[in-house]
């Protein structure tokens, strides 16, 4: 009906896409830009597998208009996985065996990154509240919470984003 030019940064690279107004960010990422790390599952903002960060905040890309990302910075798991910070996340998830099929993992990692960058990953309570909307059908969550505990940054601790583990995950 009406095509719109949308300029956005995806994983640090400036991109310009011409999309119908009703196009959803998940489709733009997966089908136009070839970024398949965000998954379509429930399609109603419940499960968290389509999570990407828009200007550092987690959104369900299945229900987010691409037009609404005009001028924004979008980070997907592909972009996050190429940053030095990612290694710490990867390692903690491997150590705790915090994934099996991996379908939900991208969304969980991006959600944890956004919480930590905002200074809102300070306790086990923060983890449980923050991941409330990320569904995993394999692990039973315990190992995910344990892996995330290694990513906690306590207030007044070291600078944001660099990580000060306060638990080895055995707690």
């Amino acid at each position, binding site marked *: 009906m009406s095509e719109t030019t949308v300029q956005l940064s995806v994983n640090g690279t400036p991109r310009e896409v011409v999309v119908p*107004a009703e196009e959803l960010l998940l489709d733009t990422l997966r089908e136009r830009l070839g970024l398949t790390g965000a998954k379509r599952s429930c399609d*109603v903002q419940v499960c968290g597998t389509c999570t990407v960060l828009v200007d550092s905040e987690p959104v369900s890309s299945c229900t987010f208009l691409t037009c609404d990302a005009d001028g924004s910075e979008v980070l997907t798991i592909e972009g996050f996985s190429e940053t030095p910070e990612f290694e710490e996340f990867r390692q903690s998830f491997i150590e705790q065996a915090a994934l099996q099929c991996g379908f939900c993992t991208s969304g969980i990692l991006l959600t944890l990154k956004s919480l930590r960058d905002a200074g809102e990953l300070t306790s086990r309570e923060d983890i449980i509240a923050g991941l409330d*909307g990320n569904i995993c059908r394999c692990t039973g969550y315990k190992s995910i919470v344990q892996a995330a505990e290694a990513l906690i940054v306590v207030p007044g601790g070291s600078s944001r984003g660099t990580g000060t583990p306060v638990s080895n995950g055995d707690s």
Partner: protein
Amino acid sequence: MTRLAAFERHCPDSVEGVTELLDSLGDEAIVYAGGTELFLLSKFGFAEYPHVIDLKGVEELRGIERSGGRLRIGATETHRSIERHPEVRRDWPALASMERGVGNLRVRTMGTIGGNLCFADPHSDPATFLLTVDGEIEARRGDGDPRRMKLEDFIVGPYENALEDGELLTSISVGELAPDAGVAHQKFILTERPAITAACHLRIEDGSLADVRLAVGSAGVRAARAEAAEGLLNGSGISDLDRVFEEAGPLAADAAEPVEDANGSVEYKRHVVAVVCRRVVDEAISAIGQENDIRPL
């Protein structure tokens, strides 16, 4: 995979501009901000509009600030921005905490308080909570004067609000809390949306409850104040609540007017309403005088 039906998107920057569009496009147009309700309905084919009006560029609909002895929250402020706002966390901690429990992180990042109230889903945390803190809304047509109304007059019924054609919900406001007031919100949730919500405002005078405002929602088609239960609770000694609730609980269940649905039978919901109301009263009592530990965000 589910795509949205085609639409044209409009991005006005003023309430005047929105009203002009709504007047000229009539039933073909709908407004959105977060899209957390509208686009779900669109996916299921329940809401297909050829014209969609984005409200995010309308400055008048934004902002969280004290104004005229009240806290004013712009209609397109997100649940997340309210939950994180330092002044809200310090002076209306129960509001911040209630917002922190809405939906999930992603829904709160996009979803707005105005959208939540306008959509008037019976299963709404804000619609229940705001009844206990003197919640009011302000609405305006682009070419008219603002109208203020109590929240109970704004939400008319399930999925039905009191806005007139071309009119927008512009802000929500809540009253200042007395220093010795305790406020709390609780919910009982089985699926994605709450099955029972309850909120309470109260004070204690000489060991007895005073200024009790108790609201119940999500069990029936519309949140409501449990006035008969409030009447029993006011003046009751806090050590006497077990006995008082034998009567107040069923009265709160009456006010909730539960309907049978996937969350349970009427009888079951009546029981849970009474339990959740007792919990929320207890929580409001323990909230009195509590220092709000606000860590910087």
